[in-house]
């Protein structure tokens, strides 16, 4: 009755089973679906009107049309990508289902891969309507960025997964008492990743910190594209290299935190 390949390699079936689990959950709860749409829409409307107002009153922004609303959309890819990953993980903690999963043949890497796929699905549900709103209300077509948009998106989503993997490990180790980190950690990156302003605005010593964060390269790249109409390949490659290191480090941290949770017995308690 049991598949003989159960303990060999990564199983697409087990990853599929987890995606199915989250899909059932999403489809069974309209508040969860609404929440995916609500915040991105609110963001783009608020910042879109702000951009319109500034554009009417400042030459620079008139020239650099779209940098603000473009930054809002890209920031939401980064933030919602991480939330999409982490909320699916938290659903297991809230449901006290982690023990069932850890005792099943599901491997940590398969669990994380299923969370990555879910973050893409949740992101698509939230971000696509957001981009359409930006197009119809403010005539900003993010898809007009063309191929560079793919480079921006990939780099941002890789960072969001790294952060998601790391905070999931923290919650696994420390229980739901560490849940607030899921919601707040990305905001610590916000000022340093220079989402709404160039790196040159920062004091010199903070610029080093900023350039250690992959999203900084993406937002600088976006401004270069919109203001100077130049696609900075060097920035994208820099972000990619940092993201590769970040993904490896976050996965190693997750495994170490999982092991610590097993040593500490927190997989059984799971609560505060």
């Amino acid at each position, binding site marked *: 009755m049991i*598949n003989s390949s159960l303990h060999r390699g990564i199983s697409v*079936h087990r990853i599929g089973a987890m995606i*199915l*689990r989250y899909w059932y959950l999403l489809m069974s709860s309209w508040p969860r679906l609404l929440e995916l749409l609500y915040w991105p829409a609110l963001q783009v409307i608020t910042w879109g009107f702000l951009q319109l107002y500034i554009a009417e009153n400042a030459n620079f922004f008139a020239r650099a049309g779209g940098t603000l609303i473009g930054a809002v959309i890209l920031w939401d890819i980064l933030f919602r990508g991480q939330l999409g990953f982490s909320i699916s993980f938290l659903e297991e903690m809230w449901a*006290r*289902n982690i023990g*069932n999963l850890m005792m*099943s043949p599901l491997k940590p890497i398969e669990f994380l891969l299923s969370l990555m796929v879910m973050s893409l699905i949740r992101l698509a549900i939230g971000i696509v309507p957001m981009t359409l709103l930006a197009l119809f209300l403010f005539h900003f077509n993010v898809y007009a960025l063309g191929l560079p948009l793919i480079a921006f998106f990939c780099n941002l989503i890789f960072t969001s997964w790294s952060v998601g993997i790391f905070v999931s490990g923290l919650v696994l180790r420390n229980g739901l008492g560490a849940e607030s980190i899921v919601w707040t950690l990305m905001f610590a990156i916000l000022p340093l990743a220079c989402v709404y302003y160039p790196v040159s605005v920062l004091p010199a010593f903070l610029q080093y910190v900023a350039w250690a964060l992959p999203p900084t390269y993406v937002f600088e790249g976006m401004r270069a594209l919109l203001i100077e109409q130049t696609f900075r390949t060097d920035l994208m490659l820099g972000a990619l290299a940092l993201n590769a290191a970040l993904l490896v480090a976050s996965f190693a941290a997750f495994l170490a935190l999982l092991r610590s949770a097993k040593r500490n017995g927190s997989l*059984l308690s799971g609560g505060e």
Partner: protein
Amino acid sequence: MTENDKASSRPTVAERSPSAAITVDHLVKLYKQTRAVDDISFSLPRGSITGLLGGNGAGKTTTIAMIMGLVLPTSGRVQVLSHRMPEESAAVLGRMNFESPYVDMPMRLTVRQNLTVFGKLYAVKHLAGRIAELAEDLDLADFIDRANGKLSAGQKTRVALAKALINRPELLLLDEPTASLDPDTADWVRAHLERYRKENNATILLASHNMLEVERLCDRVIIMKRGRIEDDDTPEAIMARYNRTTLEEVFLDVARGRVNGAKEAAR
């Protein structure tokens, strides 16, 4: 030969019982200064049902969690279905399963959706057929398409049991399988476990506070107190040793520290 040499040349529990379903060898679990499990060893033959008895904090749940690989031992060895845990867990997790009050099934998913997800995780072939079979065996048909969160305690326990049996496990670990059930449902669950063991030659290890349940189901009882094994034998032999007619009386003797007196009275 020193004492240490003698100890290291002595065969381990696993070496003495190579075909056992579970072997636990000098297992210790320390939580800071607390010895949750304190140097316990036992071996469970395949096809047996063993009850793990003990008061709250005796170390039963920690022992089961270490056997499952959810908790790492401080020292000692655990071998499950001839594989070392947790190092070789990938080779055995698909052949075992568990039910515990410390975990739940996702509440918003229906019973069928939950069983589908877990069936796929365990790579169960002909899954729809297996779910239908379990629904009939465990009387789930009336609520199989209802959300798990909307079920009564008894129905949830039956669903958790269905999840624990979805992969026809060779080894079943149960922590308080009938806790919070009415006597009728509890009796029904016990009957099902007995039948499952007989039909599949499965090994069952269950932790319980229900002495009648242990007397009825188990062919062996391990009594734990403060992380150590206080006694380990058949229910009949243990009751005879303590000169008691029920396991509940034995449990009270152990819990209240009347062990030696009771044993001497029996002699």
